[in-house]
């Protein structure tokens, strides 16, 4: 069975640019969450979506936005990129969110020059 898939795997951008990251959840999972992981740290929560509605938002600036599509896939958008946005961006899916275990993809490594 396919796990959570993310694209692209690696991305290099320059400051001020915009980026879109994509995620396909495990089949049957209706909730998708996004995380940012900086080297040496645990993942930090950015957003959670369930049935196309935003269910939760972490402490990230408005430059970060996301959406979920009718097929439950999701996009994370980041505008006006800063050097500090360089990180591994992880997507996770679960059946309904809330207290259920989340299953992660291998992430998109974003480097800002």
């Amino acid at each position, binding site marked *: 069975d396919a796990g*959570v898939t993310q694209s692209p795997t690696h991305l290099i951008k320059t400051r001020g640019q915009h980026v879109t990251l994509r995620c396909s959840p495990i089949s049957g999972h209706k909730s998708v*969450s996004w995380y940012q992981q900086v080297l*040496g*740290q*645990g*993942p*930090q*929560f950015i957003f*959670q979506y369930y049935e196309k509605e935003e*269910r*939760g938002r*972490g402490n990230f600036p408005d430059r970060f936005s996301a959406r979920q599509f009718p097929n439950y896939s999701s996009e994370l958008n980041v505008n006006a990129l800063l050097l500090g946005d360089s990180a591994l961006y*992880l997507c*996770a899916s679960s059946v309904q*969110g*809330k*207290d*259920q*275990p*989340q*299953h*992660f*993809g*291998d*992430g998109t490594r974003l480097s800002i020059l």
Partner: protein
Amino acid sequence: EDQVTQSPEALRLQEGESSSLNCSYTVSGLRGLFWYRQDPGKGPEFLFTLYSAGEEKEKERLKATLTKKESFLHITAPKPEDSATYLCAAIFGNEKLTFGTGTRLTIIP
């Protein structure tokens, strides 16, 4: 603010040498405690979920336990392939998954 703290930051063990990793959390409103394994360049791999004090889960050489203040991941007779970063995460009342910074485990043959 809800917090999850893991210790030690790093642990080196000889193959076969059993040990435990600790995860302590803000006491109020815990709704679920999760353990993940993360290999370099990969996303976290789900291991266990614990929902109430006294609960235990086991898988191969790993056993996770939960008390009212902390969780332990016990590793029995580890092998080199158990080397990884082990992450603990918790869900509190706000339903956001909060991670600790992880324990980097190295098993020496």
